[in-house]
């Protein structure tokens, strides 16, 4: 039998580290309304790296695309290669800009139509674990974001802010397993709680088995959770599970494509008074 621990210190450190993490896990620090300072600092330090990294990835992918194009044009005409490449690069840049302007335009129209204080934010990162569905945004407290601010895009509700630092925030998507949204069905007016399944799908809990739910019916926010304003589109009913007990399970297709989020509109919470 080999010796696992070379020194007593290692053994003690291991026990202390494991117990420390369990204590951290079970303390109220994680449940407090405010983002813990250490966590906020970490987010603050990480966000500039992520912003630059996202820019670099875009540049690298542009360079790769251009390289492929370059090879094709070289075969056709060497003399025109540089010129074509330059035009292509410019066009690609313009196209990206046009697409971005289009998306921002839609968000601006949405912002105007909602008449609620809001902030446009860019997605700068995904979830660092494989277990949650979240995105890191480039706006934080400085832009007026706080915990529980809802985020939407032109297609519907996408999630809510769960952690905020000065210049970045963590957006929990409505498909996350820990997410819950108070919803109501457009026609039947049945209310329930939309829960994420962690697989980019969601279902509604607590819909009475006597409620007549129709496939294709719109799912809207009910406003009862006091996070999402009432009447925002969440998705559409795709299936209902036969009622075995008091409640039936309603499967929902989320209207917003949360897998391809690039920009979102975060609705600011109105400060009391």
């Amino acid at each position: 039998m080999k010796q696992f621990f070379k020194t007593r210190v290692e053994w003690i450190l291991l026990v202390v580290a494991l117990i420390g993490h369990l204590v951290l896990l079970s303390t109220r620090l994680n449940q407090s309304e405010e983002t813990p300072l250490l966590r906020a600092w970490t987010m603050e330090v990480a966000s500039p790296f992520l912003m630059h990294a996202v820019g670099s990835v875009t540049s690298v992918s542009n360079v790769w695309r251009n390289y492929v194009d370059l090879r094709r044009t070289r075969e056709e005409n060497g003399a025109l290669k540089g010129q074509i490449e330059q035009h292509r690069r410019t066009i690609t840049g313009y196209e990206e800009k046009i697409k971005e302007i289009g998306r921002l335009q839609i968000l601006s129209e949405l912002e105007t139509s909602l008449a609620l204080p809001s902030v446009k934010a860019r997605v700068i990162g995904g979830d660092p674990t494989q277990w949650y569905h979240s995105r890191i945004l480039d706006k934080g407290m400085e832009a007026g974001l706080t915990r529980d601010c809802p985020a939407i895009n032109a297609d519907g509700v996408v999630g809510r802010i769960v952690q905020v630092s000065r210049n970045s925030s963590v957006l929990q998507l409505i498909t996350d397993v820990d997410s819950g949204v108070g919803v109501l069905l457009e026609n039947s007016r049945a209310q329930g709680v939309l829960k994420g399944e962690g697989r980019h799908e969601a279902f509604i809990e607590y819909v009475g088995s006597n409620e007549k739910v129709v496939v294709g019916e719109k799912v809207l926010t009910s406003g009862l959770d006091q996070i999402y304003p009432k009447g925002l589109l969440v998705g559409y009913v795709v299936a209902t599970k036969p009622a075995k007990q008091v409640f039936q399970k309603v499967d929902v297709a989320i209207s917003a494509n949360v897998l391809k989020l690039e920009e979102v509109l975060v609705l600011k919470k109105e400060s009391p008074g």
Partner: protein
Amino acid sequence: MGNFLRSTAVLIIIVSTVVLQVLLTRYFPRLPLDLPLVAVLYLTMAKESLLWTILSGTAVGFLQDSLSPGPLGLNGFTKIAIGCLAYMANTIIAIDRVATRWGMLFVSSLLAALLFLLLRVLFLNRNETIDGERILLSGLINACAGLPLFYIFDKISQPANE
């Protein structure tokens, strides 16, 4: 001093796996990959010291938890515990060949997933359903991605071993 610098470089690379993970999941949200776990396992194997497992597990876990909606402590505990198990396994079987490394990465990934879900049930009072297919896929992807990463890490830290 040279060893210190190389160790620091390794630590920076380990931490940068979290940044890489965040970027990867931004562009490939469905990818069930846990690069930080691979990095912690590498350090455990390469340094053959629990101290490195504890340090890297804590740092990487804290970073992951800070940038996700989950509570602090969850990923740190998982990384240290799985790193410790891998360390123990390494004292019994020499995990230095491709096949044993692949097996260790695969099993560690499965155990990490199960431990993560268990902690959520025990400490966060969540009802978890075990998605066997996803956990297996995650194990396969982590094991396959881990091998070239181990090779790269080996190349980086090689001068320290000479």
